[in-house]
C-alpha cells in the first residue's frame, strides 16, 4: 500500500538513534512483524530512492482532538548513517512522508509452546520489538539477546522488559551487560524447543545461523540489501540462496522473498 503518513513524534533515544511514530491506515494493523516499509524522506530528487526500515511497532491510539476515532500508528527505530537518515532525523510532528507498507515477508512465529529467542545487533533490534509484542500477546515465553559496540547501541531494553521479555545484553567494550559478542551470551541458551529470530549485521547473522544449525534450532534471519523498488521488480536487492553456484545461480529478492528468511535458505560464508 502507498500512503502519506504524518509524523507524530521523532525522538533521539541514544546518540544517533531515533524512534519515529507516524500515522498509518487501518490496513497496517494487519501487518506482520518482520515486514518493512519504504519511506521517501522528502519529495525532492535528493536523496532519490526510498529508504527501507523495519516495522518497530504498530498499534493504535486515540487522537486528542475531537472528531477522530482510533487511529493506527506505525513506528520505526533508525540509526543515522547517511543523507537519508540525517534528513529523517530532522522531521517534526506534523511533517508528511510518503510510505509503502507493509512490504515483504515477515517472521513465521512458529508453534506455541516453544521458547522464542530474539537476537538483535544494534539497530537490528528494530523488527524484534513488534515481534516480541505479538509473541507476548500469544502468551509465549520470549528472551531477547541484544548486542552492540557500546552502551549507546543498546536500545529500548526497558520497553522489551515491560512486555515481559527476559533480556540479555552484551557489548564489545563491556559498557553495558557482558563484555563480548552477543552470540557468546546466546550460545548456552540454545536447546531443542527454542526458535531463533535474528536481525543485525551480517557477521552476527552468519554466526547465529551457524550456531543454530549446530544446535539444530530453527532460525529465521532478517536481512538487509540495497533496494530500489521494494516490490520485487528491479532485482537490485537479491542475495545468494543456499544452493547458489556460479553455474546454477539462485538469487532471492530480499524485498519480496524476504527480508525474513529461514537461515538454511541462504548461503553463508
Amino acid at each position: 500500500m502507498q500512503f502519506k503518513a504524518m509524523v507524530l513524534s521523532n525522538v533521539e533515544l541514544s546518540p544517533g538513534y531515533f524512534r519515529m511514530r507516524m500515522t498509518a491506515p487501518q490496513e497496517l494493523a494487519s501487518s506482520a512483524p518482520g515486514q518493512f516499509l519504504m519511506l521517501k524522506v522528502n519529495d525532492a530528487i535528493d536523496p532519490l530512492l526510498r529508504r527501507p526500515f523495519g516495522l518497530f511497532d504498530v498499534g493504535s491510539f486515540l487522537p486528542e482532538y475531537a472528531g477522530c476515532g482510533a487511529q493506527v500508528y506505525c513506528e520505526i527505530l533508525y540509526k543515522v548513517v547517511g543523507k537519508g537518515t540525517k534528513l529523517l532525523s530532522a522531521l517534526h510532528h506534523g511533517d508528511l512522508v510518503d510510505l509503502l507498507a507493509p512490504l515483504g515477508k515477515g517472521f513465521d512465529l512458529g508453534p506455541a509452546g516453544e521458547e522464542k529467542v530474539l537476537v538483535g545487533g544494534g539497530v537490528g533490534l528494530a523488527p524484534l520489538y513488534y515481534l516480541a509484542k505479538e509473541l507476548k500477546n500469544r502468551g509465549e515465553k520470549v528472551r531477547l539477546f541484544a548486542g552492540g559496540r557500546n552502551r549507546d547501541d543498546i536500545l529500548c531494553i526497558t520497553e522489551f522488559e515491560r512486555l515481559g521479555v527476559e533480556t540479555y545484553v552484551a557489548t564489545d567494550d563491556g559498557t553495558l551487560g557482558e563484555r563480548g559478542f552477543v552470540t557468546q551470551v546466546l550460545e548456552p541458551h540454545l536447546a531443542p524447543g527454542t526458535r531463533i529470530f535474528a536481525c543485525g549485521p551480517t557477521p552476527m547473522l552468519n554466526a547465529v545461523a551457524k550456531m543454530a544449525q549446530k544446535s539444530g534450532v530453527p532460525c529465521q534471519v532478517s536481512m538487509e540489501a540495497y533496494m530500489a523498488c521494494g516490490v520485487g521488480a528491479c532485482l537490485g536487492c537479491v542475495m545468494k540462496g543456499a544452493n547458489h553456484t556460479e553455474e546454477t545461480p539462485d538469487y532471492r529478492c530480499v524485498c519480496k522473498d524476504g527480508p525474513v528468511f529461514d537461515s538454511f535458505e541462504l548461503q553463508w560464508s
Partner: protein
Amino acid sequence: MQRPDMSVAIAGIEMRNPVMTASGTFGYGAEFADYLDLESIGAMITKGLSLKPKAGNPTPRIVETSGGMLNAIGLQNVGIDAFIEQKLPYLKNVNTPVIANLYGNTLEEYGEVASRLDGLAGVAGIEVNISCPNVKQGGIVFGTDPSAAQEVVSLVKKNTSKPLIVKLSPNVTDVVVMAKACADAGADALSLINTLTGMAIDLERRRPVLANVTGGLSGPAIKPVALRMVWQVAKAVSLPIIGIGGIMTGRDALEFMLAGATAVQVGTASFLDPSAAQRIAREMEEYLVEHGIASVRSLIGALEV
C-alpha cells in the same frame, strides 16, 4: 471542455495514452498491480528477456547517485519460455498492450528469441535492447557499432511480424548514425535512451560499489542528455520515437513529446513512486485540459527552435 484525446500509436500499437513503463523497472507488471491501475497506462514493457534464464550479476547491483542511480542487474530474467508460461497469462488478462523487451548474447540468440515471440497472442510488439551496457556480449557492441546494430535489427525483423522497436544506447559519439542504421535495417520505431555507463566508488573500502564495477545511470540526472538525443534523432529519422530518461512528471513527459517523441517510458520514477506511470499520464492530461489542447498528438515535435 471535452476530455483531451490522449491516444497515440507506435508502429500500429494503439495506446490509450503515451505513457509506457520502461524495461527492467516494472518487473513483469504484476509487481505493481497493488499500486496503480495497469489499465490506466499506455503500454507495459517487460524486463529484458533472453533465450535461457539468466542469473544476472553478483551484488551489490544498485547504488544511488546524485539525482540518479546506477544499476548492474546484469539482465537477470526468467528466460523466454518461463516468461511465456508463467508471466504472460497474467498479462493477457490486462487490457493494456504488452511489449516484450529482448536481447541476445549472440546475434543468433536475438533472432531465436524474436521468433519464439512471433505470433504469440498477448504480445503487442517487441523492443530490442541493443544497448545494455552491463553484459559483455549482450549489448555494448551491438549498441555502439552501426553495422552490428544493423545486423541484429535485420535478423530480428526477419524473425518477427510484430512491430519492432529498437532501443538505442546513449553511450555513442553520434546517436543519429545509430538511429539511421536501425531505421535502414527495418526498425518500426526507436526508443531512447538506455542508461549512460557510470561508476561509483566506496572510498572506505577502496572498491567499486557495484560488484560489476560499472553500471547504467538512470533517473533525473540523465534527462538533459536524453532530451537532446530524442531531439537529434527526431530531426533526422522519420520513425516514431519513444522518449526515455529521467521522466518524473507529466511536464517531463510533455517536454519529450515536444522534442519529437510520440510516446515516453517511465523507468526509475516507478521506484520512487510505484504509481508514477499512472500519475504521469494524469498530469499530462491535466496539462492539456488547463491549456485547452484537444489532442496530445498535436504536441509531438512541436518544439520551436
